[in-house]
């Protein structure tokens, strides 16, 4: 797997952007207004900044161990057995995430597009589609990310334009009245919307120039932040803080109120849904790909493609465990608190600190200096 094609920093940016944005946006306006009222959009920015900081840690960590993914270097940092446990935990985290994604996606699709199609059929088709991409190599994932970025940025922004007359910015007042403690605890609730950036732990060694990872991540996360802020601001200003909490998926509600004057398409939300399928597909597939990559590396397999299909069945059964949407979101909250926060924020930071304390990056740097001295 080491001789496979590398991805460019633009491709990493595209992968990250498309991965992060798919899933979190759905509940974001509701979650942040619950946590911080009209100041929710500030919470989005704060969460984004935290994510950027952590992803810079992760990229530093990756640079200490060139050519290794977290699966290999976690063993170096925190002894081999612990490293394997960490990697397996990471794997479980991704598998569960995929299951949630698939289920939520199926529920949304059922509600907005295919009301009489069984949930199972939607989940299966979605997962099979993911298997197809997860069997390819990382370069393909990178290319498809690159192709898809404009596909869903442009139309979603364009369709937001007609919503402007519906907006009432006074809904965003009062400004900065949230108590600081409530605001800080609120950051915890929005991490779910930024989950996905931690896949850098796996993807960095696949980059042609791993040094650019931090920059690419920052750009991708800022873009995500902007889109999220836009979504929150538009949803809150259209519906108001109170009404928004009664909507399950406020962004779709936004597109539902839009009428494009004189257009052939009567109801924009169908098209938005179509774009949404793309976004969710990308998120799910990248997580799927990450899970497959971790497993193949833990088992030191040379090929990763054949794991994909069995894994899809596992995810399928997991996705069908909750009975309804409410339960899905109940589990999801627990998931993001007990697995999402640790695996994307706490553990990478801890790994970074331990590696620093053990002087691992330094070792390497010294080694390299020695090498260059010898060379000179």
């Amino acid at each position: 797997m080491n001789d496979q094609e590398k991805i460019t920093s633009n491709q990493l940016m595209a992968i990250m952007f498309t991965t992060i944005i798919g899933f979190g946006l759905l509940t974001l306006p509701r979650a942040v207004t619950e946590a911080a009222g009209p100041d929710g959009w500030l919470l989005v920015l704060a969460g984004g900044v935290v994510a950027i900081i952590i992803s810079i840690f992760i990229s530093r960590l990756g640079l200490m161990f060139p050519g290794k993914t977290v699966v290999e270097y976690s063993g170096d940092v925190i002894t081999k057995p612990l490293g394997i446990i960490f990697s397996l935990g990471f794997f479980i985290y991704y598998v569960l995430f995929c299951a949630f994604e698939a289920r939520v996606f199926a529920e949304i699709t059922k509600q907005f597009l295919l009301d009489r199609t069984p949930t199972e059929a939607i989940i299966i088709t979605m997962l099979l589609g993911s298997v197809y991409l997860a069997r390819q190599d990382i370069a393909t994932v990178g290319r498809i990310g690159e192709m898809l970025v404009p596909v869903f940025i442009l139309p979603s922004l364009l369709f937001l334009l007609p919503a402007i007359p519906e907006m009432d910015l006074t809904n965003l007042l009062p400004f900065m009245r949230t108590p600081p403690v409530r605001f800080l605890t609120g950051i915890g609730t929005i991490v779910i919307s930024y989950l996905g950036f931690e896949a850098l732990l796996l993807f960095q060694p696949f980059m042609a120039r791993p040094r650019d990872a931090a920059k690419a991540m920052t750009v991708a996360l800022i873009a995500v932040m902007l889109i999220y802020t836009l979504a929150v601001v538009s949803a809150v200003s259209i519906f108001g803080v109170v009404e928004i909490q009664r909507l399950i998926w406020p962004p779709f509600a936004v597109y539902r109120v839009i009428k494009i004057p004189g257009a052939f398409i009567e109801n924009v939300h169908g098209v938005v849904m179509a774009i949404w399928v793309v976004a969710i597909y990308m998120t799910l597939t990248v997580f799927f790909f990450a899970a497959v990559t971790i497993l193949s590396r833990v088992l030191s397999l040379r090929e990763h493609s054949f794991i994909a299909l069995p894994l899809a069945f596992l995810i399928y059964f997991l996705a069908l465990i909750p009975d309804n949407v409410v339960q899905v979101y109940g589990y999801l909250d627990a998931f993001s608190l007990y697995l999402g926060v640790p695996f994307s924020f706490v553990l990478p930071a801890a790994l970074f600190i331990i590696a620093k304390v053990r002087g691992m990056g330094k070792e390497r740097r010294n080694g390299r200096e020695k090498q260059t001295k010898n060379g000179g």
Partner: protein
Amino acid sequence: MGLLERFRPKKQEKEPSKEEAKDKVSSSLDKNLKYLKDKLKDCDDVVYREFRVGSRQQFRFALIYVDGLIDRNMIYEEVLKSLMLQTRHANLNPGIITGDVFSIALRSGLTTGEVKEEEYIDKSMISLLSGDSLVLVDGYKKVLVIGSKGWPNRGVQEPQTEAVIRGPRDGFTETMRSNTALLRRRLRDPNLKIKQTKVGVRSKTDVALAYMDNIVDKNVLKEVEKRLESINIDGVLESGYIESFIEDEKYSIFPQVQSTERPDKVAASLLEGRVAIITDNTPFVLLVPATLNILLQSSEDYYERWFIASFIRILRYASAFVSLVLPAAYIAITSYHPGLIPTDLALYIAGTRTGVPFPAFIEAILMELTLELLREAGIRLPGPIGQTIGIVGGLVIGQAAVQAGLVSPIMVIVVAITAIASFSLASYSVGIAFRILRFFMIVLSAVLGLYGLVMGLLMILVHLCSLKSFGVPYLAPLVGNTYYELGDALVRVPQTVMYRRPKTLAGGNMIRMRTGGAKGASGGGGGRDGDDAGSGGTKGGSVKAGDGNGKGKAGGRRVSGGRDNGQKSGGQKEGGPGTHE
């Protein structure tokens, strides 16, 4: 010229070395003739002509050729007449003509251009079968191989499959030599290399690789050579045989090798650093690497003014998309999401569908299959009839099917638009790939509505992203760090601002050939002007003052270099051929 090269390929050299002793030409003419006649038993198209040369008729010669493959006049005039008559005249001066008859015949007897000595009889037999003539001399262990190819030839005609409004009308023919000549006429550059090999154990088809030595990506070239060498097939009758052996992904529906009949297209591709594979006996030349973007282009894009060309390109991309999704989208919307379109239209569509006994899916499949049948029938039937039947058949079936109430009129329109869109694609093979995928899309959207449609598109996109043609991503330059090439992808920017060769295709340090005057001359700038690009570039280089518009247009593809020229006044120098590498 080509004759010498033809014997260079390794395979051919290995063969004789195995059975060296047996293969060598014997010194006895009778033995040799017997050997050949034995091997070529029942080959009645081979002609043997024995004759004697010299004043006393003391030297025995034999001429062997395959009737029909050779230029008879040439053989009669330059070989038989020269040897039989003119040596007799020369013999008036006996002091000179003594000695080695064989080398005298070679040096001063034969008045033809291509003559070669050959030691191995089997090798000479292969050249005999490819249209050369053999002259055997009694007592000498060598054969004279005379290049005498001349068979009935179709002649250069306008290509049937890639018609253009504006652009050269000449197309490749079935004869490789005339095809390489068409290329050489366009690129008078020593860097245009034409390397020949033979492919096919039995057919021994001549295959030539053409490339620009200092532009081509050496890795691609090596890969092409490697894949060509690995072909082990009995006969290569068309370049399609080769294509199927060298393409990257055999199980993909998309063509990963471009085939064209147009020499101008090949010349332009060579200037972009691609490799052309010219196969004997077919007018279709293969070009690698190929990307989807390239396959959707037409050579005319570069001859029309850029605005028109850009419009046409966008239209072509749109029609590729339409030919893929239109019927599927129609099914998805009418059967699953009528709320997406204006209510009036939805009601109208529902109204036209009343009385149609089939679901939209069956309706679409029925009409699409009929259309494919009509297309196929139209191709098989002779020219004018085929067209008439195609159009009339389509009209009648469409009209009749609607009146009979089997199909709704809107479905006929949808299918017709789809057909027009798919025929407007520049490449037949890409068009047909999209047409086949259309059925896949129809099925998906019939089952899963809009969601199925989007998933289908995603799957196709994933597949396209995973494809590579000789190391170049199939979707380049839409992916990878090659965004500046987008100017020559979805649109076509003016020739004057395309400074650089596409990085995805051209190799290494030769990317910016277009920046300098000399480079402009050798690379011919945009180069797509074919013949005159070279001289135009030089002129632009030496005139150099008009680097903005006017005259600079010819050499002006060096635009960024043009700026330098202003200061360095290096137009003249750079214009010279000295600075090639």
